[in-house]
């Protein structure tokens, strides 16, 4: 073998194994994060963590019951405002739209999806907090809903488009009109994909901190109703991690573990069970 060939073969082997190393590094980060959180947060998870309010500042003990409930309430609002708009908008793009408006909506959805979450926070502040003059669960829910809409809309559209046109024609041939065709044939056929998109979008905003900082703010107590500031898991992790107390740091780890587990489990379950094909493909 000439020296040139040996060089080429060595280069080949080196560079190809380096690309493997790149993947290894990237992928191992996830397992590292997971392992470190379980190690650090696992020992501070207790029944109290889920059922108690935070202890007074400076004292140890207490839990995060109000933050967990707060996060759930925020997610409920995000789903309530965001999902219907995203879903119906997606139906419009796939089934009704002409050319110009769908193009505009699609482009805008991608744009809105890329807006930094902290800017969405400013917008929700201007929209809800400024007129009401105080922070509230409602404002946080609006901020999260604005982040849910573009994802659900684009996802719904693409799954509706994947439904074969034979199904549409079949239902027209049986005399159904358009809305009936959409409601009873197309939407059910695409339902698994749409549900996947909705759940993934909610899992994403469940971990968002930045848009909540000056909308839902924070609260060391229960937040009754929808118009009071509320605590939430991501915000309390931030507050506790950057706070001065050792006990806060330990609770931040525990809360981090709960949040990460929630997000990852949702992602894994949804991606493995729901998104594997759509229902019309099985028949």
């Amino acid at each position, binding site marked *: 073998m000439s020296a040139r060939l040996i060089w*080429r073969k060595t*280069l*080949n082997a080196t*560079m*190809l194994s*380096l*690309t493997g190393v*790149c*993947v290894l*590094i*990237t992928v191992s980060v*996830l397992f590292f*994060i997971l392992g*470190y*959180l379980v190690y650090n947060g696992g020992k501070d998870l207790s029944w109290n963590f889920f059922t108690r309010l935070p202890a007074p500042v400076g004292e140890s003990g207490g839990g995060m019951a109000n933050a967990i409930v707060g996060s759930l309430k925020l997610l409920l609002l995000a789903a309530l405002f965001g999902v*219907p*708009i995203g879903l*119906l*908008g997606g*139906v*419009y793009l796939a089934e*009704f*739209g002409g050319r110009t*408006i*769908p193009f505009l*909506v699609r482009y805008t*959805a991608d*744009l*809105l999806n*890329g*807006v*930094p979450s902290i*800017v969405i926070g*400013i*917008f929700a502040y201007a*929209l809800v907090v400024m007129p009401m003059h105080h*922070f509230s669960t409602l404002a946080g829910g609006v901020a999260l809903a604005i982040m849910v*809409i*573009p994802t659900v*809309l684009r996802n719904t559209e693409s799954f509706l488009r994947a439904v074969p046109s034979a199904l549409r024609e079949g239902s027209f041939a049986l005399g159904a*009109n*358009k*809305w009936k065709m959409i409601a009873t044939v197309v939407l059910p056929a695409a339902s698994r994909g749409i549900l996947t998109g909705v759940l993934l979008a909610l899992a994403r905003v*469940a*971990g968002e*901190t930045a848009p909540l*900082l*000056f909308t839902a*703010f924070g609260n060391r107590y229960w937040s009754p109703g929808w118009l009071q500031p509320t605590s939430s898991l*991501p915000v309390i*992790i*931030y507050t506790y*991690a*950057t706070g001065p107390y050792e006990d806060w740091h330990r609770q931040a780890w525990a809360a981090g573990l709960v949040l*990460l587990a929630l*997000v*990852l489990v949702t*992602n*894994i379950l949804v*991606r493995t069970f729901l998104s594997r094909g759509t229902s019309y493909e099985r028949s």
Partner: protein
Amino acid sequence: MATTPNAATPADLAWSPRALLRRLRGADEIAHLITFIAAATLLLITVLLVYQLWVLSAEARTKFGWHFFVTRTWDPVAGQFGALPFIYGTLVTSAVALVLAVPLGVGGAIFLAELAPPGLSSSLTFVSDLLAAVPSVIYGLLGVFLLVPVMRTTIQPFLKRTLGFLPLFQGPAYGIGFLTAGIVLAIMIVPFVLSVSREVLLAVPRDQREAALALGATKWESTWKVVVPAARIGIFGSVFLALARALGETMAVTMVIGNNPRISPSLFSPGYSIAAVLANEFSEATGNLYLSALIELGLVLFLLTFVLNGLARLLIVITTARGSGVLPT
């Protein structure tokens, strides 16, 4: 008076099938209208977002004009607001992140698209997608308690010893600062570079690889000299997409950058970014000028990511469309 009975008569005559049909078509119109309103809501939200940012930042814009972008002082008490330290911090941390993340992401994408068997490739991509789903506050948590001490005791002293002649790696090792924020950002954006680049590489037609191999190229040569150049524009697209993410990333950066509005050539120095100052000061801002200066920072961030995202999508669309044969090459 006379027209009403006349108009009613034909409808009465053909009452059953035709009127029913008309009513059903009416239902279609209603469905059309409702879904259109939903789609229009999205447009309305976006327009309102831009409008609010523009109007609420008016006070700072008229008071400081273009000087806002070149002034270094940020003194809420004296009413002096300059965005330069924040813009500097945002750009420096994002640049560090790109330098680290692009080779890692593109290299990984090459492995997944060219070498790994399909099963392995898709399960590794799955893991990478999960990584993209990890909330940013979790990265911040690990950054604060794990990376910052390691940076202070090991990495920064090491860089000082080996590369200390460069102004980039001088000054005291605090642990927090531009470099640490850049590293956390890099870890966060690698999954985006990886998965988008992989898709772009997979869109390059098989013939091109086979032609290169048939000419006697090694696997690496066919990948690096044929496939990667063919996918180049799309890879740039994935980099812009990742850059847009890095610029707007808030929590992880806020927790490790040091939150000090300083402009220093050293990467070890604590700094500040646009998103971080918004996270820290927005809810405590007193006075309209202060608030409007912060909102102007938000506007700057919005415009930056808007331009980058637009560019990225255009580039990705161009390459994937070309690769799949939709556009002529």
